[in-house]
């Protein structure tokens, strides 16, 4: 199996997933109508998984070295996790959202195949690199969605048409996103131990990631204690996302970040 086979596997998987996640939304029920999306999505996961496994075997190493290769895993896990979450909670929007995210990565790999040969500095050549980045991206995606909900919530609250179901939705997104953030933080710590000798050095990137994590922790506890208050937690969510954005892109520009080992420009 080689990269030249990717267009076939990438496009077929994308088609299967798009059809599967679209049919979920169609009206009507019945055993066949209900089974079709599952079959399509599972077929896509199996096909993509087969491609990854075959590529792994033919390369003789984990296909996790180059940026293009990491995007393959993003695409695969986004699809798979979206499906698992759908099995668990029946969130149609979540399935569609993850599949859309996954398509972005498949399309990037189809359009920019020249990135496949990109080199990776030795510190990034770690088995923790891929899971660390994947869960973080996934967490960010969910918390980004939670922020959209919070902004909509603040807007509706301003016009006094706020509905409770909205904050329930943002709670769910935050719980899921926060769990992924926790996984990302911890994978990062384990990786840092393997690569740099210590799991936590209060490097600016680490510090900001930690503050982001605490900000969502505050939201979870505040909501738990005051289930009927909405305005404060909605504001908390918006602020938390600003911290998240600083942790993600902004750190590179902070005076405290000069000499950070995690700033790759």
């Amino acid at each position: 199996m080689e990269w030249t086979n990717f267009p076939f596997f990438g496009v077929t998987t994308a088609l299967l997933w798009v059809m599967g996640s679209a049919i979920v939304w169609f009206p009507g029920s019945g055993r066949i109508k209900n089974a079709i999306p599952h079959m399509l999505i599972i077929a896509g996961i199996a096909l993509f998984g087969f491609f990854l496994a075959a590529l792994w075997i033919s390369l003789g190493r984990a296909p996790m070295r180059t940026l293009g290769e990491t995007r393959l895993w993003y695409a695969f896990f986004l699809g798979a996790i979206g499906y698992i979450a759908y099995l668990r909670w029946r969130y149609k929007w979540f399935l569609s959202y993850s599949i859309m995210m996954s398509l972005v990565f498949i399309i990037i790999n189809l359009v920019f195949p020249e990135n496949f040969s990109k080199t990776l500095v030795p510190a990034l050549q770690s088995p923790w690199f891929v899971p660390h980045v994947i869960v973080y991206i996934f967490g960010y995606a969910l918390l980004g969605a939670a922020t959209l909900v919070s902004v909509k919530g603040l807007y509706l609250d301003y016009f006094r048409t706020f509905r409770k179901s909205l904050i329930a939705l943002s709670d769910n997104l935050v719980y899921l996103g926060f769990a992924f953030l926790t996984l990302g933080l911890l994978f990062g710590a384990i990786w840092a131990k393997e690569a740099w000798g210590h799991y936590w050095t209060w490097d600016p990137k680490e510090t900001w990631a930690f503050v982001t994590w605490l900000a969502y922790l505050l939201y979870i506890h505040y909501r738990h204690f005051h289930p009927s208050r909405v305005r404060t937690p909605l504001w908390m969510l918006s602020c938390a996302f600003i911290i998240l954005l600083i942790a993600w892109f902004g750190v590179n520009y902070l005076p405290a970040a000069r000499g950070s080992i995690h700033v790759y420009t």
Partner: protein
Amino acid sequence: MSDKNKSKVEKGRKMWSDPWRYRESFTVALLLLATGILIELVTPHPGVTVPGFPANMFTGMVFITTLVFLHLFYRKSPLVKWLSGVPAAVSSITLFSLVALLLGIIPQRGGSDGIFAAAGFTHITNSWMIVMAQMYVLASLGLVTLRRSLPLNWKNAGFLLNHAGLWIVIAGASLGTGDLQRLKMDLHKGETIWYGYDAQNRTYELPFAVRLDNFHIEEYPPKAGIFDGRTGRLADDIRGDLPHIYEGDEFTLPGYRITVEKFFPSAWPDGEGFMQSDETGSPPAAKLTVTSSGSGETYSGWISCGSFLISPSYIMLGNNMVLAMTEPQTRRYISEVRIYTQDDEPEDKIIEVNDAPRVSGWRLYQFSYDTSRGKWSELSILEIVRDPWLPVVYTGIFMLLAGALYILWLGKDIKTEKSKE
């Protein structure tokens, strides 16, 4: 009572009357912060030095015993109730966030002076501020863990994993710094070294010795690019990644078609060109044929990025532009070492980035080398780390990982169960 009424009561209520809520909690947080700054100002020695074993262990035991004692005998007291409640949790997490935020904004450098430094703001990671914030979090988190996780049962599992896990990580990591040792070892090829040195250049004898047999660097193939010969800058019309040079390959750069006739990863100048060589200081070199797509003109020649012994070679393209080779990027740094311990046979090991072997309670990390000689370095610098508290911290980390999976699985249900109550 609805939340609205609660907050009315909150407004009319006297400060410090039971039960303490947000106003009191945040006041406590601010007082703790001020106390931290004050201690820092009045003590001559900047920051906190966590004591080593057994004092750090003892400190931890006293803290845990106190929390358990409070939980067992004073559970109903207003103070314990408050500390194990959400307002204290929210304010302690906020205080911790605030201190971490300062750490993320203020550049940290040891040894600076002025009131700002004396108050601890330039060494926050070991300041009394962070100690205060951590103690507040640990007290609140510890008491709620005891209150909510006991008696142990499946319903409490998620709560226990997350809260006890975090408690163990924070406590273990802070107390563990007392026993954490990070040293450097300079290994010159052929020499056997049995000591390391710390940031202050103090040397420490080690329970093992290391001999460097070989150090080498594996590289990616070099890349070709068009540069302005006067400034050394990449030509403006080049987009994206530069092409790697492989023998027999053909590629284009704006305005030119290029064929790689020959490529030697390691070569020595020979008359007009280069020949394959394994001499120290042999750079990579490639023979290229360049065809201008405008005029159809063809040049041919050698390019090389040079080394500490050989100067670079380019192909002139006219207009002050040159076709040149970039220095190859590193794929791996590898130290081949022989390790001698007191009890076992000597063992040959490979040390590279992301692959640090374990020896007698230490881990050996590839850290640096003689950069002026690049891949012909005869020196390899290791960073060696001993962290006896790591198993404690990892226990907490794995509890948190399990706790995160629990949230992923149960996410929403934590809420629905609560609201059903």
